[in-house]
């Protein structure tokens, strides 16, 4: 007899592609935001979550970071940072929101557009991800919460960020699987965690806590 489907933990390896597109002011940034691939939007809004930080970064997305640093557009940077990434289930929606925030800012601004220094342009990159199984498999809820302690940040990134935004899944993979097993409460508790508001290590700890308190 077949039991419930097992959860196969995936992980990912990443390369960065360069597009050759560069922006030196907000109109140029907008032009390329409309043109670049979804993999580029994903890269610039997500790669910092995988980087090791010695101190909490002020901005997690590159658009906010660059507009603050290179264009001294602090108000816009704050608005771009305030975009709730969890509110979107596709890169397309996220791209539209970023564009809307910048357009709104340009329309409302009375100042002429600032230019970045020639050595501080925004260079559009793209994320290339290779998803592969880790070899770790959980065949029950108990083993799932047991194994989750040992999975890498890349694996968490894959099941939380890639799954929702690039693999067109309605939610993170963990909640999806638990829900399929009828564990609705556990599924929604994990779903309520905001992975953008914490580090991946903290996210893992939170999931472990959900498991411990069940």
């Amino acid at each position, binding site marked *: 007899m077949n039991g419930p489907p097992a959860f196969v933990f995936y992980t990912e390896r990443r390369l960065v592609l360069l597009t050759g597109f560069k922006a030196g002011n907000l109109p140029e940034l907008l032009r390329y935001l409309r043109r670049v691939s979804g993999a580029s939007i994903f890269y610039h809004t997500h790669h910092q979550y995988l980087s090791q930080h*010695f101190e909490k970064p002020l901005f997690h997305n590159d658009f906010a970071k660059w507009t603050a640093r290179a264009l001294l557009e602090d108000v816009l940077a704050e608005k771009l940072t305030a975009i709730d990434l969890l509110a979107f289930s596709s890169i397309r929606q996220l791209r539209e929101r970023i564009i809307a925030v910048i357009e709104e800012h340009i329309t409302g601004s009375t100042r002429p557009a600032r230019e970045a220094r020639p050595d501080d342009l925004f260079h559009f990159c793209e994320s290339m991800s290779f998803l592969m199984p880790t070899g770790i498999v959980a065949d029950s809820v108990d083993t799932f919460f047991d194994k989750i302690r040992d999975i890498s940040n890349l694996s968490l990134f894959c099941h939380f960020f890639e799954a929702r935004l*690039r693999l067109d899944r309605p939610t993170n993979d963990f909640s999806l699987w638990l829900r399929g097993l009828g564990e609705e409460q556990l599924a929604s508790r994990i779903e309520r965690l905001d992975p953008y508001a914490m580090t991946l290590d903290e996210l893992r700890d939170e999931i472990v806590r959900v498991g411990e308190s069940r």
Partner: protein
Amino acid sequence: MTSLLEAYQEVVGPQVVQELLVVAARVRHRSMQHINSTAVGGGVAEILTRLLPLLADIGVRATWDVIRGDQRFFEVTKAIHNALHGKGPPLTPEMWEVYQAATRANLEQVQLKGDVIFVHDPQPAGLVEARERIGRQWVWRCHIDVSTPDESTWGFLRPLVELYDAAIFSMPEFAQSLSIPQYLVAPSIDPLSDKNRELDAGTVSATLDRHGIDAGRPVLTQISRFDRLKDPLGVIAAYRLVKQRHDCQLVLAGGGAADDPEGEQTLEEVRARAADDPDIHVILLPPLSDLEINALVRGSTIVFQKSLKEGFGLTVSEALWKGKPVIGGAVGGIRIQVLNGVTGYLVHSPEGAANRALELLRNPALCRRMGENGHEHVKQNFLLTRQLKDYLLLMLALEHPGERLIRLP
């Protein structure tokens, strides 16, 4: 596991080596061939020397070939190099003819046997013309700073580059408008090389002694060619400002002035500016001084890389790896190695450099903490094992052209 792999594992940890093996297992069915223009000397040869045995140890078949050329060819390729750097006159059609003739000669000589052929820098780039005849996959690995290339020189090279399957650049700023995919692979340092490996305290103090440097007093050091763009005079100016308020010595060490008239002139200016200050040590290093450089950096309190223009500037990673905070010019790749206030400071003037040096000299705990951060930053991002992993992933990427999200079984 081989002893070489074990030696790396000791430095980078088992997880990194495991990861290399996982990726290697997926690319092992294809061989890799590297081609460059020199077997010894220079950063590319340095990295390939170490990369090849490592590839063998993780089970990836790899070979390395070196193209040949006469003096005239290398004069032309030096001119190409300078023009791509944005300094020096553009390439002429006559020079391009010399380049093409050497390419034709090399096409007769070099055995193109790899499934994926990595061609390093402009010198051997023309070999890609064989692609039409033999197929295979071709990658052009550009190690030089092409952020502001001379357009007409790039115009000669670009059609060749576009014959490749992919190009690799070291920084986003170097990306070009090209019809082929461009990958970002940062350069790396080898933690086991003479320039970077651990040294015993005796070797460090003997080196300092030999140069008359007092190990008991703070040492500020800049290791770089005597080149105006490295701003050695600015470093002396910074040192003099520090010296007014805190005891210290300055070491300016570098090589490569012999065949470079401008370098010789800069060295003379540096010596004149140092004048008879017994605490300034201007050291002209002969080639193959890696151990000496290693010891000088390890014997330093703070390292400067106060460049006015810089490609990547791996000397920064070399210093950070040794636990030294780095005060660097806010240019080029220095900006991704020196995390401002975390692994050192980014500065824009001798005054800025002096202020930050004073801050660090007065706060040894801060100096130590930044050094530790720097070591960790390099460990995560700028070691040879990371570059190797990127090359392997690129092999994998070439099997999935156009895809950005690749699901592997």
